[in-house]
């Protein structure tokens, strides 16, 4: 049971972080379908940082540097979306999809190159971080408390305040709803959209490192992040683009995702003799059902996905 709660919280953390990222991008008016790729690149940054940190580095420094590496990688990667979507008016769906393909391909190429350079016989795309990962975890009587959970709560609170209590948030949301209105009021729409996309890069990157450290201590980068970026988008829609509701939605999705990791710990679930594949599918099926019931009346930011052109009014 403890294990279920632990995994639920962990997966919910990932979903919250990434969904908040999507939320910032969409409130600014850019649809970020590349979150999946951003997660991979963020995970790569963090994983490589863990790998190359000298052993014996203090836990605090590890946490600091790993988080920094992931968020920075995510941020830099999201520039690809910002440039294409904001300045070149590219189709955001194509660009997002390309970023997802590119994320996995690039991470695989990079990790394999590093592995092969270190050991010519090693052609795997795996990064190990057994020791370093321990820095993030504190054992409280069988419950593995993870520092990322704290970061998530902080991100959640900060997001809420930023969106609803600050000048920045007001301007950001105006750009996603009615960019012409924002522009005429003197708000620089391009700048706000850049901000939205870059924040989504930071949060997506952070979500990526949490994902690959959740429960495992090595990652094979060929796998990508198994549609988690899109699950986060589903959470965002289900959460109606609002941080508080996103958190609740993420807990629900996190629970179903956690079940596939720990269902064998529950006798009654084991007795049902459901094949493990079904548990693997569960989060995706749930999200389809949930979306079917919530998308009908969902209120996405009105101008999301529409490139802003100063000239057209």
């Amino acid at each position: 049971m403890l294990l279920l709660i632990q995994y639920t919280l962990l997966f919910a953390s990932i979903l919250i972080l990434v969904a908040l990222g999507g939320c910032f991008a969409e409130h600014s008016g850019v649809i970020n379908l590349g979150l999946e790729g951003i997660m991979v690149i963020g995970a790569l940054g963090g994983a490589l940082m863990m790998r190359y940190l000298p052993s014996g580095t203090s836990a605090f420094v590890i946490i600091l540097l790993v988080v920094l590496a992931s968020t920075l990688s995510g941020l830099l990667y999201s520039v690809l979306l910002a440039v294409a979507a904001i300045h070149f008016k590219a189709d955001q769906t194509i660009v997002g999809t390309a970023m997802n393909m590119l994320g996995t391909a690039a991470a695989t190429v990079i990790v394999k190159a590093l592995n092969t350079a270190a050991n010519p016989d090693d052609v795997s795309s795996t990064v190990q971080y057994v020791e370093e990962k321990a820095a993030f975890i504190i054992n409280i009587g069988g419950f593995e408390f993870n520092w990322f959970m704290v970061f998530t709560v902080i991100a959640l609170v900060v997001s809420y305040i930023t969106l609803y209590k600050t000048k920045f948030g007001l301007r950001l949301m105006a750009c996603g709803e009615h960019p012409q209105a924002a522009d005429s009021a003197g708000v620089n729409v391009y700048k706000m959209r850049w901000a939205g996309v870059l924040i989504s890069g930071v949060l997506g990157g952070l979500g990526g490192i949490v994902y690959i450290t959740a429960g495992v201590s090595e990652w094979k980068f060929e796998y990508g992040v198994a549609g988690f970026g899109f699950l986060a988008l589903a959470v965002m829609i289900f959460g109606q683009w609002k941080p508080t509701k996103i958190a609740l939605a993420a807990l629900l999705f996190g629970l179903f995702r956690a079940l596939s990791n720990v269902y064998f710990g529950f006798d009654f679930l084991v007795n049902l003799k459901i094949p493990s594949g079904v548990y693997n599918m569960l989060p995706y099926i749930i999200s389809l059902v949930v979306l079917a019931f919530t998308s009908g009346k969902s209120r996405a930011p009105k101008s999301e996905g529409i490139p802003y052109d100063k000239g057209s009014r």
Partner: protein
Amino acid sequence: MKKNLLKNSIVQSILTSLICIVLGMFIGFIVLLFINPAGAAEAIISVAKNFLTYNSTNMQLKYLGNTLVKTAPLLMCALSVLFSYKVGLFNIGAAGQYVVGACACLYAALAWKWSWFPCMLLAIAAGAAFGAISGILKSYFNVNEVISGIMLNWIGLYSANMILSNVKEAASPYTYQLTAAGEQAILPTLGLGALFNKNQYVGLALPLSVLMAVLIWVILGKTKFGYELKATGFNKNAAKYSGMAEKRNIILTLIIGGALAGLGGSLLYQTGYEQWQCTHSSLPAMGFNGIAAAFLGGLNPIGTIFSSFFIQHITAGGAYVDKTMYCSQISDLISAIIVYLCGFVGFFKYAMNVRIEKSEAKKAAKEMSVEHKEGGKE
């Protein structure tokens, strides 16, 4: 005045695709340089050469055959993406539809010993069913087809793993060899294999996929159904206003898209070229490469035939890079970059038109001033 060739939209499409390819390869080359400058040039040439790496014509033919075997399913996935895109839908679910198509035909072939044609039909039906789910969710529940497509991709993958585990070899994660356990389901080769140095995998799939491309071209360009679909894609509201059944068209489109991708699954796995690996934990790249091929082909079914071959050509070419320095995924990287660049197609064309207009305006101004001067002399 002479008509500027660059103004022709087909010429423009081809040109922008070439720009994407060259830029994509170039960026790939730079990545290789970063990894190891020593063999980068050689590696990028290997990628571009693919089967031409071999010296003997026979070997070249054989491996050209192999590339073509995988071009057929890729073309189907690309057509699936393209067809949906014309109606304004982004069928990222092609990957999953391809997977369930593969799963359906393999299971029918291995467990029920169906012959090739019913197996193929089942694959089409399975893909279509997955497309239908996306379509219904889109038109009746307003669920974004990209998100539902991704969810269905994973559901499809895990289902395929589960179902095909029943027909797999005891000692490996692979399904039974089709040649051994389901020979009746192998697609007819039509003697085509002989052309490719007795490559037994080349057969019906190739001409069939090209035929489908032509068929899609006719449907979209020449028929009333295509007229409706494109109208819906350009302007959903106007389509509805003029009495087109836009919900039905959305569903129908995704069903057809799904059927095309499902057929793609059948066209690869029913050649016996590959076995399904029941421990797949990521989706086969075929569906996503289909996106690359569709856009690189300028969203034209005929163009897609060539772009599919090209994408498969470099994907296969990745296998020939020097493994002590690089990995084969460099090809995936290049195709991803190409898709990214395809996002800029609108901009490329715009830039081209602006340049043409500018130079024409300049020319016109020059002619005017010349006339003016001449006029002044008189």
